[in-house]
């Protein structure tokens, strides 16, 4: 439990770090940090219920992208400025490293396992973002149509 809380805080700090790196400032830093925390919380929650890393990545990306779309509209800022820092805890840097390590050590089996995992994770994140973007665009179009009637 303590480990999870620590991870949430660290994930949030990492998200703030990335926002700084992208020259964000002020209140958006706080939002991005909390978004990073929410992102990892979603992952932990999904992981708890489904016990599948790739599926949990997908659900977390889905929820975070939705949150970013809503927040961006509230704050009147481009979605991408919030979306990227908030998704940072999901970036599969660890598994990319272990894939490389397995390759260097000539461990074909682990290389295949980790390689698959990295591809699966990257795919899950991408699919989550794609789904939300399409959904939001469609909903906005429908709203615009109804308004113009």
């Amino acid at each position: 439990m303590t480990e999870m809380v620590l991870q949430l805080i660290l994930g949030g700090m990492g998200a703030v770090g990335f926002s700084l790196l992208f020259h964000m400032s002020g209140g958006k830093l706080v939002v991005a940090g909390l978004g990073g925390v929410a992102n990892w919380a979603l992952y932990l929650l999904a992981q708890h219920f489904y016990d599948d890393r790739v599926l949990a990545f997908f659900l977390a990306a889905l929820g975070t992208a939705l949150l970013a779309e809503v927040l961006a509209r509230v704050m009147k800022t481009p979605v991408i400025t919030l979306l990227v820092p908030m998704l940072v805890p999901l970036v599969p840097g660890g598994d990319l490293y272990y894939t490389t390590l397995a390759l260097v050590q000539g461990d074909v089996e682990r290389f295949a396992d980790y390689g698959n995992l990295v591809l699966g994770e990257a795919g899950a994140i991408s699919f989550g973002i794609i789904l939300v973007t399409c959904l939001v665009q469609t909903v906005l179009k429908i709203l615009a149509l109804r308004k113009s009637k």
Partner: protein
Amino acid sequence: MEQNEQILSCILDAGELLLTAGAEVGRVEDTMARMARSYGFERADVLTITASMVVTARHRSGEILTQTRRVTRRETDMRRIDQVNALSRAVCAAPLPLEQLRARIQQIADAPNGQSWTTVLAYLLVAGSFAMFFGGSVRDGIAAMICSMLLYVLGRAGALVQLQPIVLTIVQSASMCLTAWLMVQIGLGQALDKIVIGNIMLLIPGIALVTSLRDMIGGDTISGLLGAFEALLRAVAIAAGCALVLMQVGGGA
């Protein structure tokens, strides 16, 4: 007549600022078209492909103008995307006079490219927290922070001599791995893998990937594919740099 050319050029400047700051192609094109319309252009066709921009606009007066722009360097800068976005909103509400528009764009372009201490802080924060996030100890976090400073210095030096981004990534990743290994050897760090992973997070092209994904969904397949491929190359470069060092030191995690 001359006036319109200047305005279109300013609009291209705004688009270029967006594109180099890492905005999606769809946003760049949309922003430019909107700005053009608010300045009395009946129709504005904008085509942006990763490294170049073309805009043809037909003014109310019947004048048709075309301008192109070659785009080279990019560096993610969300603040700049935000500022251009705000400017474009203002312009669409009420077009600014040319001189003011030019001044505003110049102001955004000239803004200091992020205080260097903020960037240093960002590197420390990212590397330190992610080393621990992935299960490293506090000592690993500190070691990761030291390595991240090396990444920062190398990044600055690489930009100074205009090293190819891919080569720079390999150099950064290899020297970072080596330093992390040294940290473990002298007893400061404990887990080589955690220290390296914290720093890999700094190198990984997350933004490029997300942007190119959103490009592809937006129908800008060419830009999306180019971006995704660049991101893939970067990831391979990171892995190659690490592999170079790990092969020598064995990489005992």
